[in-house]
């Protein structure tokens, strides 16, 4: 498993640093730091519940089967075992309107982004407003990037090396 676990809740400006950043990404520390600053800024957008971002991040990680991202759990936006189970089963009824709208778009971002409909975007804007909805879509897009990057950079596991 890769050690790459870039997190939208890390706070490099406060000296906490990047959690579990993989050695390959440390080869470009300026870019790694800039990415963390960018991603962390999403949590400062007024009207965007952190739980909403975390639900989207985990759902996208499930779609990618991205274990490094699935291993991350944020204390500031904790998901219950029931939340995780509902995300695995795609039980949207377990979530409120804004969460359902977020998850509907998250479902398509990784592999079917052209299929996102006007109605799905409107369903996100309705409960949140335009600015928070934009922030959610930006976050979902980069949660997808994180999984692709994480899985591309992953260190070979023992079974890989033996084959």
């Amino acid at each position, binding site marked *: 498993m890769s050690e790459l676990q870039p997190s939208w809740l890390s706070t490099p400006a406060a000296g906490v640093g990047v959690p579990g950043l993989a050695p390959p990404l440390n080869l470009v520390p300026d*870019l790694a730091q*800039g990415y963390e*600053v960018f991603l962390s*800024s999403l949590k400062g*957008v007024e009207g965007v519940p952190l739980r909403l971002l975390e639900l989207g991040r985990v759902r996208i990680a499930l779609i990618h089967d991205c274990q490094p991202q699935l291993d991350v759990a944020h204390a500031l936006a904790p998901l219950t075992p029931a939340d995780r189970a509902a995300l695995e089963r795609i039980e949207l009824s377990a979530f409120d309107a804004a969460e359902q709208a977020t998850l509907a778009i998250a479902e398509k971002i990784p592999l079917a982004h052209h*299929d996102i409909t006007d109605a799905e975007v409107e369903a996100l804007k309705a409960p949140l407003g335009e*600015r928070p909805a*934009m*922030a959610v879509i930006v976050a979902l897009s980069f949660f997808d990037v994180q999984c692709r990057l994480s899985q591309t950079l992953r260190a070979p596991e023992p079974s890989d090396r033996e084959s």
Partner: protein
Amino acid sequence: MSTTPRFTAATQTGAGFGDVTAHVADVMGHFSALYGEYWQSPRTSPMLKEMTRLRNARTTECGF
């Protein structure tokens, strides 16, 4: 895929990608700084970066 804008422009200058994403100008400002750092970095040639950017845009059917 929709051909009509899904978000209003947050600027008075147009309705392009930057005008729409300006709803979260602070966030995108951080992204622009990162993107600029990437493009100005001498680690990889500009030609290689542009080639991969265009290939990625074609693969994802993105007008950019």
